[in-house]
């Protein structure tokens, strides 16, 4: 499939909209420069001729304003939409300016005034995943920050992309150089047409497309240090040390200090220097939620011993500060004063406090960690160079590299100052010169000089230093982008102060000749200068399968396009994703624009990647990777692949891909992110363990009774709320429809199930069609009002009637002791906005399930109050409890003990009765929970349910956004950690495609940008199983080239000293010793059994089938044997 064709089609569809928008929606069309109008009219003309190819690049520049256009909802009350509109106008002007000439522009006083005039509002739909990482406060600070990025090489572009996606107030791009061929291998904004243009200007429009609420401007002349005063943070990617020291000095001493970051990537080497001023306060050092504990007892002692319930392990550390609340008895602790933790243990800790004279502890209490800000005193660059302190270490096997690189980067700076150029790739003479500079600097360090320097490392450094490789730029773009966010917000701990990294293992294992490294005047020259043209050819011819086209997928496609992977006729990328683009994707998945919302992710991403590199050979599919699509991703597809790259967001799909990769013996490059954290794992056939060999512990689930009756935190309330939502609005209406579509079949199914769950379901269906059936919106309000009463008053009254506050357990302890919280009923009050909001959301959703139109007044509080007040709510009488039948031989017993099946029969009769009263063709509309639509009332209802329940139990409530994060299981995500992960993976991709690397050359990473922490280590080898004189791993396969019977197969194993007791094919059991009947199968051919029992369809081209065998050795020990492939034809 030609992906660009698809792109063209979509442009054709969009064009009238775009033109219409530009001409009509922008007030003051006459202010548009004349050339723009000309361009537009020529677009219209050309569209008639269908020259989409020609157009695509032009249009690309003209489109960035669509997102704001979509937001212009006629919502008169919101000043914010006006604000956005203003920005739209502005960015049109700015883009035009960029096209017109190289005149540089800074955010003017006017911009500042406009943006400062009202507090920046957060587009929560767009930024929800990022908000889940940063929180509103950090986001607001980001929105108020102006950032300078100097040096628009590949690294500059990556940093700019991450910051624009994050949504700072303004980004100013500085560069006074021109685009050359070497830039094309790392800066994805450039195309060959840009060669010769100013680098900052060549980026600005495409950058603006990513987020038009960010003001993007350019500075194309020499920068003076006074220019820096406008910014909160400045980043330099290409600056001489001398200039850097001068600028850093200015920033360090500026009032308030300006955060200074210098970062460079040179070949496979990278560096970051951070100086946030003499005193920088980190508000949140790790980004983790404060830890809490539920108190069980506190001693009157000094220090006091605090024990907590054994519900969850405590995560306090010594010297953490904590505060107390809700403590009964020892009320002195509830004063809100932070106290220090000592000697912390899993369920207890000592408190640095003398409680001897405090009241004695009775019950209750919650202890919460108080996160402490941290003040960092940064050294200016000139001091830090001589006295760098501790380097942030990333790979313990290379613990000596950072200090060598610290000097090497200085030596490179001298080399460049002396010769006005970089060392030539593969040039021994230049390498020597660099090493000489290195030695001089090293000697000048006196006592802190570095001994035993590895010249080979320095040679690699010198040889590749001119090249900016995309994976390095992506990786450092993520790291530096995060540092800027830290500088602007105080969120997360900055790098203090140097970070060095190298990936020399990425080089091919064979020695590269200087002639291999010679530039070919292609866009891959930079990469060739490091890896040689042989590897470049391998990259171009690679056949790659990328699974997933979300945040990771977009980054991977960009990286691969720049690296030239699959960029020739023999090469091919297949990317698949069954998802479509949603608004919340746009803040990270940077290949998508908001006019792509609703389109297939893989197709849009593939088209965008082709714009980055027109040679890219790519096919985009919309198939989920799962057993159901094995006809698409069949044997020949798999066999053609060189490597598989996972870009997935769930474990199940990862496990499936792992299993497939193991089966077809393909390398699998795996990565994932969670907020600021990311990990990468290389799965290389026969060298490493597979992905599924180790798994994280499962997520803790709350016990049923906790959710049902004894919640003690908001998560429990939200779990309950979601399950109520699903039961009431999705499951019951679907059941109703199931019954109505085929009453007879439904009744039969219920009868044959005959259990308590079927009875429950039937009761609910009847309730829905009979007592609680709604015909008007007023009915829905009445229903909602009664639900409120039931949930938040009656049920609580019943529970506390059953277990009064002073109940005792069998051991004499209070029943309502921690972690249980005693609930109190709510009294519906129309004046309470949350009560009313619940009423509104519940009745609107109820109306939806009954297909009742929602009247306009439903959203009017006064009218709603009136309607709510009309509902007659009967007084609640708690049930006295089950009557005890004293005669055990009694034949007639209370209703509770009647058999379900009998009840079901009665219920079905009843159901058939009430279905007669329904209008013909009546059906309900089940509602499926959708978290990301802010207008559908789903989250309002769930948050309402959860918060009212929280109120019952005096659990702190949460706002709708937080409720959405928890109930919607939103995975926090930011662009920076994604970029870092994909950069790291692509450094491994060089190894995989070059081939011949040993296991210790491969690297797995765990990183947390919040701390920051990098843990790079070699992968684990696969587990070896030994039996008799045989050894095997998960990568091995046993092959039998014979069409044998089950018995013959078992004998074959017997000869190896193995007793098979269970043999399965796919998900079906062919033989298991537990089932006597299976003995009859012994003389059947395995292949026939597979067809018969497993219904296996073996495609004509396949000559074998695979069976999984569980067996024991002679001593009865279980032996994990490899998969057995039986070649039956």
């Amino acid at each position, binding site marked *: 499939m030609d992906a660009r064709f698809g792109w063209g089609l979509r442009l054709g569809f969009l064009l009238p909209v775009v033109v219409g928008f530009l001409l009509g929606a922008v007030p003051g069309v006459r202010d548009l420069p004349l050339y723009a109008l000309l361009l537009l009219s020529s677009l219209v003309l050309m569209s008639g001729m269908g020259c989409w190819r020609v157009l695509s690049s032009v249009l690309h520049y003209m489109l960035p304003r669509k997102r704001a256009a979509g937001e212009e909802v006629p919502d008169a009350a919101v000043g914010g939409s006006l604000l956005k509109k203003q920005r739209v106008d502005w960015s049109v002007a700015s883009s035009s300016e960029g096209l017109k000439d190289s005149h540089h522009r800074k955010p003017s006083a006017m911009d500042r005034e406009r943006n400062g005039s009202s507090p920046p509002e957060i587009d929560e739909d767009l930024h929800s995943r990022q908000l889940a990482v940063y929180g509103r406060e950090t986001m607001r600070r980001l929105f108020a920050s102006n950032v300078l990025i100097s040096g628009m090489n590949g690294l500059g572009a990556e940093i700019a992309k991450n910051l624009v996606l994050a949504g700072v107030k303004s980004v100013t791009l500085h560069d006074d150089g021109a685009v050359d061929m070497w830039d094309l291998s790392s800066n994805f904004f450039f195309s060959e047409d840009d060669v010769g243009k100013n680098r900052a200007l060549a980026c600005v429009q495409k950058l603006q497309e990513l987020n038009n609420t960010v003001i993007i401007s350019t500075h194309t002349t020499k920068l003076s240090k006074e220019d820096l005063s406008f910014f909160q943070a400045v980043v330099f990617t290409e600056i001489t040390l001398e200039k850097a020291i001068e600028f850093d000095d200015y920033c360090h001493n500026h009032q308030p200090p300006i955060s200074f970051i210098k970062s460079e990537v040179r070949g496979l080497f990278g560096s970051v220097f951070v100086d946030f001023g003499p005193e920088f306060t980190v508000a949140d050092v790790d980004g983790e939620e404060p830890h809490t504990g539920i108190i069980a007892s506190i001693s009157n002692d000094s220090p006091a011993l605090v024990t907590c319930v054994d519900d969850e392990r405590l995560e306090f550390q010594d010297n953490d500060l904590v505060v107390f609340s809700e403590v009964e008895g020892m009320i002195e602790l509830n004063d809100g004063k932070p106290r220090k933790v000592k000697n912390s243990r899993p369920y207890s800790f000592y408190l640095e406090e003398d409680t001897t004279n405090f009241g004695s502890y009775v019950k209750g209490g919650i202890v919460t960690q108080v996160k402490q800000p941290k003040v960092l005193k940064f050294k200016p660059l000139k001091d830090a160079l001589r006295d760098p302190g501790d380097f942030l270490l990333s790979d313990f096997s290379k613990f000596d590299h950072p200090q060598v690189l610290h000097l090497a980067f200085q030596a490179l700076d001298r080399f460049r100052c002396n010769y006005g150029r970089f060392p030539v790739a593969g040039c021994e003479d230049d390498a020597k010169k660099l090493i000489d500079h290195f030695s001089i600097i090293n000697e000048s360090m006196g006592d802190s000089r570095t001994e035993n320097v590895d010249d080979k490392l320095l040679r690699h450094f010198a040889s590749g230093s001119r090249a900016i490789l995309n994976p390095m730029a992506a990786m450092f773009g993520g790291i530096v982008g995060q540092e800027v966010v830290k500088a602007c917000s105080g969120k997360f701990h900055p790098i203090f102060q140097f970070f060095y990294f190298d990936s020399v293992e990425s080089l091919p294992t064979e020695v590269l000749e200087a002639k291999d490294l010679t530039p070919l005047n292609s866009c891959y020259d930079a990469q060739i200068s490091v890896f040689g043209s042989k590897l470049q050819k391998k990259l171009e011819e690679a056949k790659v399968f990328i699974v997933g086209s979300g945040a990771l997928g977009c980054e991977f496609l960009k990286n691969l396009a720049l690296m030239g992977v699959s960029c020739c006729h023999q090469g091919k990328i297949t990317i698949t994703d069954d998802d479509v683009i949603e608004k919340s994707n746009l803040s990270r998945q940077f290949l998508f624009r908001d006019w792509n919302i609703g389109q297939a992710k893989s197709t849009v991403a593939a088209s965008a990647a082709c714009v980055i590199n027109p040679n890219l050979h790519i096919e985009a599919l919309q198939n989920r990777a799962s057993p159901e699509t094995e006809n698409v991703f069949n044997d020949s597809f798999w066999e053609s692949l060189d490597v598989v790259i996972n870009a997935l967001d769930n474990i199940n799909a990862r496990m499936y891909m792992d299993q497939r990769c193991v089966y077809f013996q393909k390398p699998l490059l795996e990565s994932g992110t969670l907020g600021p954290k990311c990990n990468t794992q290389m799965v290389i056939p026969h060298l490493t363990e597979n992905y599924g060999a180790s798994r994280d512990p499962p997520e803790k689930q709350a016990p049923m009774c906790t959710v049902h009756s004894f919640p003690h935190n908001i998560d429990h309330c939200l779990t309950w709320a979601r399950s109520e939502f699903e039961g009431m609005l999705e499951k019951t209406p679907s059941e109703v429809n199931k019954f109505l579509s085929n009453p007879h079949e439904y009744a039969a199914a219920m*009868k044959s199930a005959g259990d308590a769950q079927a009875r429950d379901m039937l009761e609910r269906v009847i309730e829905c069609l009979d007592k609680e059936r709604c015909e008007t919106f007023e009915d829905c309000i009445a229903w909602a009002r009664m639900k409120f009463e039931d949930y938040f008053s009656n049920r609580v009254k019943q529970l506390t009637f059953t277990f009064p506050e002073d109940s005792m357990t069998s051991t004499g302890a209070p029943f309502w002791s921690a972690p249980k919280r005693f609930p109190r009923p709510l009294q519906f009050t129309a004046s309470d906005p949350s009560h009313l909001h619940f009423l509104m959301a519940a009745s609107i959703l109820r109306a939806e399930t009954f297909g009742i139109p929602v009247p306009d007044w439903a959203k009017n509080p006064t009218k709603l109050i009136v309607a709510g007040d009309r509902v007659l709510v009967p007084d609640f009488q708690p049930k006295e*409890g089950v009557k005890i039948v004293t005669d055990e031989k009694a034949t007639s017993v209370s209703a509770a003990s009647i058999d379900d099946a009998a009840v079901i029969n009665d219920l079905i009769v009843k159901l058939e009765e009430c279905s007669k009263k329904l209008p013909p063709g009546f059906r309900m509309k089940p509602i499926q929970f959708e978290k990301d639509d802010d207008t559908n009332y789903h989250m309002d209802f769930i948050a309402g349910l959860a918060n009212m329940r929280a109120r019952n139990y005096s659990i702190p409530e949460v706002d709708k956004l937080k409720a959405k994060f928890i109930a919607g299981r939103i995975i926090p995500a930011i662009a920076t950690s994604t970029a870092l992960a994909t950069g790291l993976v692509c450094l491994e991709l060089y190894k995989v495609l070059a081939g011949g690397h040993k296991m210790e050359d491969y690297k797995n990473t765990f990183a947390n940008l919040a701390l920051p922490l990098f843990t790079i280590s070699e992968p684990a080898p696969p587990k070896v199983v030994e039996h008799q004189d045989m050894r095997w791993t998960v990568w091995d396969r046993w092959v039998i080239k014979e069409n044998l019977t089950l018995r013959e197969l078992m004998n074959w194993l017997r000869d190896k000293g193995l007793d098979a007791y269970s043999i399965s094919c796919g998900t079906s059991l062919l033989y298991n010793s537990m089932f006597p009947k299976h003995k009859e199968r012994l003389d059947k051919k395995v292949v026939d059994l597979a067809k018969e029992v497993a219904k296996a369809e073996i495609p004509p081209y396949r000559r074998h089938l695979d069976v999984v065998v569980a067996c024991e050795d002679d001593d009865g020990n279980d032996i994990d044997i490899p998969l057995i492939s039986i070649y039956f034809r």
Partner: protein
Amino acid sequence: MATNENLPPNVIKQLAKELKNLDDSPPEGIKVIVNDDDFSTIFADIEGPAGTPYENGIFRMKLLLSHDFPHSPPKGYFLTKIFHPNIATNGEICVNTLKKDWNPSLGLRHVLIVIRCLLIEPFPESALNEQAGKMLLENYEEYARHARLYTGIHALKPKPKFKTAAISESTTALNVDQKAASLTAAPSSKTVAGPELSAVAVSPAASELAVEAASARPASATTTVTASATGPTSKPVASAGFPVPLKKEGTIAAKLPAVDRKKMDARKKSLKRL
């Protein structure tokens, strides 16, 4: 109700291991029943422990395994009605092992033992059936009497509560040609497809019902792993272990005494004694 999700081959292998182990050394008072073409629903008959109000009862429960098993815990339900603080009226079980304390290495044996222990020692503090919890706390004797009453009515019943539907629903192969299966089930008393267990199903009353319910009868083998030391025949309640398709429980209950002996014999043959 069945999840009907396929289990990956490695999990099937793992389950085969676990089931073999349960077969080799069964836990006390627990009988495991699985269908050979669906490991994702595992039935167990738990003997009411001696000295509890559940004594002499046989409580059938099921464990539903998700495709993510053993990473995710199984879902457990009691199918036999029981009066117990930690078992909801709809059969749901509240036990930490199945939620908070789940760990993939625990295994089915552990789960089953924990659930049986729950019958010995209920936890009214974490009640799911609050009435039962309250009664246990306030008046143990009344609770015990009530629980015994339930046991007497539901768990001693010499009628099988095993619902074939629960199996066939989760049996992909059977769903595929359900019609064929029910056809073969109907007239002949010597169905080739049917192993030992089908001998029960084709007893006249039962087979008639099976057809009427249009639900597939087990065309494949079901094994029963017996744990009771004395063996099932020593108690009349043991026949509760039979998967017989039911339509009207009332009618079949009336006919049961007649087929009881036959069933015993069939059972003797069908069960692998332990």
